[in-house]
Protein backbone atom coordinates (compact mmCIF):
# COMPACT_ATOMS: atom_id res chain seq x y z
CA UNK A 1 0.00 0.00 0.00
CA UNK A 2 2.92 2.31 0.76
CA UNK A 3 3.90 4.42 -2.22
CA UNK A 4 0.59 3.87 -3.94
CA UNK A 5 -1.80 6.72 -4.36
CA UNK A 6 -5.47 6.12 -4.96
CA UNK A 7 -6.66 9.62 -5.72
CA UNK A 8 -9.99 8.49 -7.13
CA UNK A 9 -10.78 6.03 -4.33
CA UNK A 10 -12.56 8.78 -2.42
CA UNK A 11 -15.30 8.83 -5.05
CA UNK A 12 -16.08 5.13 -4.73
CA UNK A 13 -19.67 4.33 -3.88
CA UNK A 14 -19.99 2.17 -0.78
CA UNK A 15 -23.12 0.77 0.79
CA UNK A 16 -24.44 3.01 3.53
CA UNK A 17 -26.68 2.43 6.54
CA UNK A 18 -25.40 -1.11 7.18
CA UNK A 19 -27.16 -4.28 5.94
CA UNK A 20 -30.41 -2.44 5.20
CA UNK A 21 -28.58 -0.05 2.86
CA UNK A 22 -26.85 -2.96 1.13
CA UNK A 23 -30.21 -4.58 0.46
CA UNK A 24 -31.71 -1.52 -1.25
CA UNK A 25 -28.48 -0.14 -2.80
CA UNK A 26 -28.40 2.85 -0.49
CA UNK A 27 -24.91 4.32 -0.87
CA UNK A 28 -22.72 6.82 0.94
CA UNK A 29 -23.64 9.27 -1.81
CA UNK A 30 -27.31 8.98 -0.84
CA UNK A 31 -26.33 9.42 2.79
CA UNK A 32 -24.61 12.70 1.93
CA UNK A 33 -27.67 13.87 -0.06
CA UNK A 34 -29.98 13.10 2.83
CA UNK A 35 -27.58 14.83 5.21
CA UNK A 36 -27.45 18.00 3.10
CA UNK A 37 -31.22 18.11 2.72
CA UNK A 38 -31.64 17.52 6.46
CA UNK A 39 -29.14 20.27 7.31
CA UNK A 40 -31.07 22.78 5.18
CA UNK A 41 -34.41 21.86 6.74
CA UNK A 42 -33.05 21.89 10.30
CA UNK A 43 -31.20 25.15 9.68
CA UNK A 44 -34.38 26.82 8.48
CA UNK A 45 -36.52 25.31 11.23
CA UNK A 46 -34.11 26.53 13.91
CA UNK A 47 -33.44 29.88 12.24
CA UNK A 48 -37.10 30.76 11.78
CA UNK A 49 -38.25 29.50 15.17
CA UNK A 50 -38.10 32.91 16.85
CA UNK A 51 -39.31 35.05 13.89
CA UNK A 52 -37.79 38.14 15.50
CA UNK A 53 -38.08 41.57 13.91
CA UNK A 54 -34.39 42.07 14.59
CA UNK A 55 -32.90 38.69 13.64
CA UNK A 56 -30.35 36.80 15.65
CA UNK A 57 -27.32 35.18 14.07
CA UNK A 58 -29.02 32.03 12.81
CA UNK A 59 -32.10 33.88 11.58
CA UNK A 60 -29.86 36.44 9.83
CA UNK A 61 -28.05 33.63 8.04
CA UNK A 62 -31.31 32.09 6.88
CA UNK A 63 -32.71 35.44 5.78
CA UNK A 64 -29.48 36.27 3.97
CA UNK A 65 -29.70 33.03 1.97
CA UNK A 66 -33.36 33.60 1.20
CA UNK A 67 -32.93 37.21 0.09
CA UNK A 68 -29.81 36.41 -1.94
CA UNK A 69 -31.62 33.80 -4.04
CA UNK A 70 -34.74 35.95 -4.23
CA UNK A 71 -32.73 38.89 -5.58
CA UNK A 72 -31.04 36.57 -8.07
CA UNK A 73 -34.44 35.35 -9.32
CA UNK A 74 -35.94 38.82 -9.64
CA UNK A 75 -32.83 40.36 -11.25
CA UNK A 76 -32.34 37.59 -13.80
CA UNK A 77 -35.82 36.40 -14.70
CA UNK A 78 -37.77 39.53 -13.85
CA UNK A 79 -40.72 40.08 -11.53
CA UNK A 80 -42.48 36.91 -12.72
CA UNK A 81 -39.35 35.00 -11.72
CA UNK A 82 -40.74 34.71 -8.22
CA UNK A 83 -42.88 31.82 -9.46
CA UNK A 84 -39.68 29.85 -9.93
CA UNK A 85 -38.09 30.97 -6.68
CA UNK A 86 -38.83 27.71 -4.78
CA UNK A 87 -37.18 25.65 -7.52
CA UNK A 88 -34.09 27.84 -7.80
CA UNK A 89 -33.75 28.03 -4.03
CA UNK A 90 -34.01 24.26 -3.65
CA UNK A 91 -31.40 23.64 -6.35
CA UNK A 92 -29.07 26.30 -4.98
CA UNK A 93 -29.22 25.20 -1.36
CA UNK A 94 -28.98 21.49 -2.19
CA UNK A 95 -25.89 21.93 -4.37
CA UNK A 96 -24.34 24.43 -1.96
CA UNK A 97 -24.73 22.10 1.03
CA UNK A 98 -23.60 19.13 -1.06
CA UNK A 99 -20.43 20.97 -2.09
CA UNK A 100 -19.77 22.22 1.41
CA UNK A 101 -20.21 18.99 3.35
CA UNK A 102 -18.16 17.26 0.68
CA UNK A 103 -15.20 19.39 1.82
CA UNK A 104 -15.14 17.72 5.25
CA UNK A 105 -13.12 14.57 5.87
CA UNK A 106 -15.21 11.38 5.97
CA UNK A 107 -18.02 13.08 4.07
CA UNK A 108 -18.86 12.17 0.52
CA UNK A 109 -19.03 14.91 -2.13
CA UNK A 110 -22.01 13.71 -4.15
CA UNK A 111 -21.68 16.62 -6.61
CA UNK A 112 -18.41 15.02 -7.79
CA UNK A 113 -20.41 12.37 -9.63
CA UNK A 114 -21.52 13.13 -13.18
CA UNK A 115 -24.59 10.93 -12.63
CA UNK A 116 -25.83 13.33 -9.94
CA UNK A 117 -24.98 16.59 -11.70
CA UNK A 118 -26.30 15.38 -15.05
CA UNK A 119 -29.58 14.37 -13.41
CA UNK A 120 -29.91 17.83 -11.89
CA UNK A 121 -28.95 19.51 -15.17
CA UNK A 122 -31.32 17.36 -17.24
CA UNK A 123 -34.13 18.17 -14.83
CA UNK A 124 -33.41 21.89 -15.22
CA UNK A 125 -33.17 21.50 -19.00
CA UNK A 126 -36.47 19.60 -19.32
CA UNK A 127 -38.19 21.95 -16.90
CA UNK A 128 -37.08 25.12 -18.72
CA UNK A 129 -38.06 23.60 -22.07
CA UNK A 130 -41.44 22.70 -20.58
CA UNK A 131 -41.87 26.23 -19.25
CA UNK A 132 -41.02 27.61 -22.69
CA UNK A 133 -43.63 25.48 -24.44
CA UNK A 134 -46.17 26.12 -21.67
CA UNK A 135 -45.73 29.90 -21.92
CA UNK A 136 -45.41 30.30 -25.68
CA UNK A 137 -46.86 27.13 -27.14
CA UNK A 138 -45.47 26.07 -30.50
CA UNK A 139 -44.08 29.58 -31.00
CA UNK A 140 -41.30 28.59 -28.60
CA UNK A 141 -39.71 26.83 -31.58
CA UNK A 142 -38.97 30.30 -32.96
CA UNK A 143 -36.31 30.36 -30.25
CA UNK A 144 -34.17 28.37 -32.69
CA UNK A 145 -34.62 30.91 -35.49
CA UNK A 146 -32.36 33.90 -34.85
CA UNK A 147 -34.11 37.14 -35.79
CA UNK A 148 -32.97 39.28 -38.72
CA UNK A 149 -31.28 36.51 -40.70
CA UNK A 150 -31.74 36.04 -44.47
CA UNK A 151 -33.77 32.95 -45.30
CA UNK A 152 -31.07 31.07 -47.22
CA UNK A 153 -28.88 31.01 -44.10
CA UNK A 154 -31.54 29.36 -41.94
CA UNK A 155 -30.80 25.70 -42.90
CA UNK A 156 -27.29 26.32 -41.57
CA UNK A 157 -28.17 28.40 -38.52
CA UNK A 158 -31.09 26.42 -37.12
CA UNK A 159 -28.99 23.25 -36.53
CA UNK A 160 -26.34 25.41 -34.87
CA UNK A 161 -28.93 26.94 -32.56
CA UNK A 162 -30.43 23.54 -31.77
CA UNK A 163 -27.03 22.08 -30.89
CA UNK A 164 -26.14 25.06 -28.76
CA UNK A 165 -29.47 24.58 -26.96
CA UNK A 166 -28.80 20.89 -26.32
CA UNK A 167 -25.28 21.70 -25.12
CA UNK A 168 -26.81 23.43 -22.09
CA UNK A 169 -27.30 20.41 -19.82
CA UNK A 170 -23.88 19.06 -20.80
CA UNK A 171 -22.00 22.24 -19.96
CA UNK A 172 -24.11 22.76 -16.82
CA UNK A 173 -23.39 19.30 -15.42
CA UNK A 174 -19.76 18.96 -16.57
CA UNK A 175 -18.83 22.29 -15.04
CA UNK A 176 -20.03 21.37 -11.56
CA UNK A 177 -18.75 17.80 -11.72
CA UNK A 178 -15.30 18.78 -13.07
CA UNK A 179 -14.77 21.52 -10.53
CA UNK A 180 -15.63 19.34 -7.56
CA UNK A 181 -13.72 16.29 -8.80
CA UNK A 182 -10.59 18.29 -9.67
CA UNK A 183 -10.45 19.93 -6.26
CA UNK A 184 -10.83 16.69 -4.34
CA UNK A 185 -8.26 14.90 -6.51
CA UNK A 186 -5.74 17.70 -5.96
CA UNK A 187 -6.19 17.41 -2.20
CA UNK A 188 -5.61 13.70 -2.30
CA UNK A 189 -2.56 14.03 -4.57
CA UNK A 190 -0.85 16.63 -2.38
CA UNK A 191 -1.65 14.63 0.75
CA UNK A 192 -0.16 11.59 -1.02
CA UNK A 193 3.03 13.58 -1.71
CA UNK A 194 3.43 14.08 2.04
CA UNK A 195 3.27 10.33 2.66
CA UNK A 196 5.67 9.61 -0.21
CA UNK A 197 8.19 12.18 0.98
CA UNK A 198 8.12 10.89 4.54
CA UNK A 199 8.39 7.27 3.42
CA UNK A 200 11.22 8.02 0.99
CA UNK A 201 13.46 10.52 2.78
CA UNK A 202 12.76 10.01 6.48
CA UNK A 203 13.11 13.08 8.65
CA UNK A 204 14.10 15.38 5.75
CA UNK A 205 11.08 14.23 3.83
CA UNK A 206 8.89 14.94 6.82
CA UNK A 207 10.28 18.49 6.97
CA UNK A 208 9.92 18.95 3.21
CA UNK A 209 6.32 17.79 3.32
CA UNK A 210 5.47 21.14 4.88
CA UNK A 211 5.29 22.41 1.28
CA UNK A 212 2.44 20.13 0.11
CA UNK A 213 0.76 20.69 3.47
CA UNK A 214 0.88 24.44 2.87
CA UNK A 215 -0.49 23.94 -0.63
CA UNK A 216 -3.33 21.89 0.80
CA UNK A 217 -4.15 24.60 3.33
CA UNK A 218 -4.32 27.12 0.48
CA UNK A 219 -6.45 24.67 -1.51
CA UNK A 220 -8.99 24.51 1.33
CA UNK A 221 -9.62 28.22 0.84
CA UNK A 222 -9.84 27.82 -2.93
CA UNK A 223 -12.18 24.85 -2.65
CA UNK A 224 -14.43 26.78 -0.28
CA UNK A 225 -14.65 29.50 -2.94
CA UNK A 226 -15.26 26.96 -5.71
CA UNK A 227 -17.96 25.16 -3.70
CA UNK A 228 -19.97 28.34 -3.21
CA UNK A 229 -19.22 29.72 -6.66
CA UNK A 230 -20.29 26.57 -8.51
CA UNK A 231 -23.55 26.39 -6.60
CA UNK A 232 -24.10 30.05 -7.51
CA UNK A 233 -23.21 29.44 -11.17
CA UNK A 234 -25.60 26.49 -11.38
CA UNK A 235 -28.41 28.55 -9.87
CA UNK A 236 -27.79 31.67 -11.98
CA UNK A 237 -27.65 29.61 -15.18
CA UNK A 238 -30.93 27.98 -14.19
CA UNK A 239 -32.32 31.50 -13.83
CA UNK A 240 -30.88 32.51 -17.23
CA UNK A 241 -32.46 29.51 -18.94
CA UNK A 242 -35.76 30.26 -17.24
CA UNK A 243 -35.44 33.86 -18.45
CA UNK A 244 -34.95 32.60 -22.01
CA UNK A 245 -37.95 30.31 -21.63
CA UNK A 246 -40.22 33.03 -20.27
CA UNK A 247 -39.12 35.95 -22.44
CA UNK A 248 -37.52 34.30 -25.51
CA UNK A 249 -34.38 36.52 -25.46
Amino acid at each position, binding site marked *: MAGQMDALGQFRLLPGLGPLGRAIDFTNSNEAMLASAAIIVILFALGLRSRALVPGRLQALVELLYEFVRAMCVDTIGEEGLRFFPLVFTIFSFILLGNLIGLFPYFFAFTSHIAVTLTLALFVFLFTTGVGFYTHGVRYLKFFVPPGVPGWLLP*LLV*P*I*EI*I*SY*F*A*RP*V*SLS*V*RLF*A*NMTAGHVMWEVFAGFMLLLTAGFGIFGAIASIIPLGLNVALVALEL*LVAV*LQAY*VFAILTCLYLHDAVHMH
Partner: protein
Amino acid sequence: MNDGRDDFEQRLAKAREAAQGGARGTATSAHRSAGAAQSAINLAMRLGVELVAAMVIAVTIGWGLDRLLHTRPWMMVVMVPVGMAAGLRNVVRAAGPK
Protein backbone atom coordinates in the same frame (compact mmCIF):
# COMPACT_ATOMS: atom_id res chain seq x y z
CA MET B 1 -45.89 55.57 20.52
CA ASN B 2 -46.55 56.87 17.02
CA ASP B 3 -43.71 59.37 17.37
CA GLY B 4 -41.32 56.62 18.34
CA ARG B 5 -42.25 54.65 15.23
CA ASP B 6 -41.71 57.64 12.93
CA ASP B 7 -38.42 58.34 14.59
CA PHE B 8 -37.38 54.76 13.95
CA GLU B 9 -38.34 54.96 10.27
CA GLN B 10 -36.36 58.16 9.86
CA ARG B 11 -33.33 56.71 11.56
CA LEU B 12 -33.62 53.55 9.44
CA ALA B 13 -33.76 55.57 6.22
CA LYS B 14 -30.76 57.61 7.32
CA ALA B 15 -28.78 54.52 8.25
CA ARG B 16 -29.61 52.85 4.94
CA GLU B 17 -28.44 55.93 3.05
CA ALA B 18 -25.22 56.04 5.04
CA ALA B 19 -24.62 52.35 4.51
CA GLN B 20 -25.14 52.66 0.78
CA GLY B 21 -22.88 55.71 0.52
CA GLY B 22 -20.25 53.99 2.62
CA ALA B 23 -20.40 50.85 0.57
CA ARG B 24 -20.04 52.86 -2.59
CA GLY B 25 -17.24 54.99 -1.22
CA THR B 26 -14.86 52.60 0.51
CA ALA B 27 -15.60 49.03 -0.34
CA THR B 28 -15.93 49.39 -4.10
CA SER B 29 -12.33 49.35 -5.30
CA ALA B 30 -11.16 46.36 -3.26
CA HIS B 31 -14.42 44.60 -3.88
CA ARG B 32 -14.32 45.19 -7.59
CA SER B 33 -10.78 43.91 -8.15
CA ALA B 34 -11.47 40.74 -6.15
CA GLY B 35 -14.73 40.28 -8.00
CA ALA B 36 -13.06 40.84 -11.36
CA ALA B 37 -10.34 38.24 -10.72
CA GLN B 38 -12.93 35.78 -9.50
CA SER B 39 -15.25 36.25 -12.43
CA ALA B 40 -12.31 36.00 -14.86
CA ILE B 41 -11.46 32.49 -13.59
CA ASN B 42 -15.14 31.70 -13.61
CA LEU B 43 -15.54 32.96 -17.19
CA ALA B 44 -12.50 31.04 -18.41
CA MET B 45 -13.85 27.82 -16.92
CA ARG B 46 -17.24 28.46 -18.41
CA LEU B 47 -16.00 29.19 -21.92
CA GLY B 48 -13.85 26.07 -22.13
CA VAL B 49 -16.66 23.82 -21.01
CA GLU B 50 -19.09 25.62 -23.31
CA LEU B 51 -16.91 25.00 -26.37
CA VAL B 52 -16.46 21.30 -25.62
CA ALA B 53 -20.09 20.67 -24.65
CA ALA B 54 -21.44 21.75 -28.06
CA MET B 55 -18.86 19.56 -29.81
CA VAL B 56 -19.84 16.56 -27.67
CA ILE B 57 -23.51 17.02 -28.51
CA ALA B 58 -22.82 17.49 -32.23
CA VAL B 59 -20.57 14.43 -32.47
CA THR B 60 -23.10 12.36 -30.53
CA ILE B 61 -25.91 13.40 -32.86
CA GLY B 62 -23.74 12.71 -35.92
CA TRP B 63 -22.71 9.30 -34.60
CA GLY B 64 -26.32 8.39 -33.80
CA LEU B 65 -27.56 9.48 -37.23
CA ASP B 66 -24.79 7.44 -38.87
CA ARG B 67 -25.86 4.37 -36.93
CA LEU B 68 -29.49 4.91 -37.86
CA LEU B 69 -28.97 5.70 -41.54
CA HIS B 70 -25.84 3.56 -42.16
CA THR B 71 -24.08 6.56 -43.70
CA ARG B 72 -20.88 6.30 -41.68
CA PRO B 73 -18.93 8.60 -41.53
CA TRP B 74 -20.75 11.34 -43.42
CA MET B 75 -23.23 12.62 -40.84
CA MET B 76 -20.43 13.02 -38.30
CA VAL B 77 -18.30 14.82 -40.89
CA VAL B 78 -21.20 17.22 -41.44
CA MET B 79 -21.98 17.65 -37.75
CA VAL B 80 -18.46 18.45 -36.52
CA PRO B 81 -18.23 21.90 -38.19
CA VAL B 82 -21.80 22.61 -37.11
CA GLY B 83 -20.84 21.67 -33.53
CA MET B 84 -17.80 23.94 -33.66
CA ALA B 85 -19.99 26.78 -34.85
CA ALA B 86 -22.50 26.10 -32.08
CA GLY B 87 -19.70 26.05 -29.49
CA LEU B 88 -18.38 29.38 -30.74
CA ARG B 89 -21.92 30.74 -30.70
CA ASN B 90 -22.26 29.72 -27.05
CA VAL B 91 -18.90 31.25 -26.17
CA VAL B 92 -19.81 34.52 -27.86
CA ARG B 93 -23.14 34.50 -26.07
CA ALA B 94 -21.51 33.82 -22.69
CA ALA B 95 -18.69 36.33 -23.08
CA GLY B 96 -20.29 39.02 -25.18
CA PRO B 97 -22.46 41.95 -24.10
CA LYS B 98 -25.85 40.96 -22.82
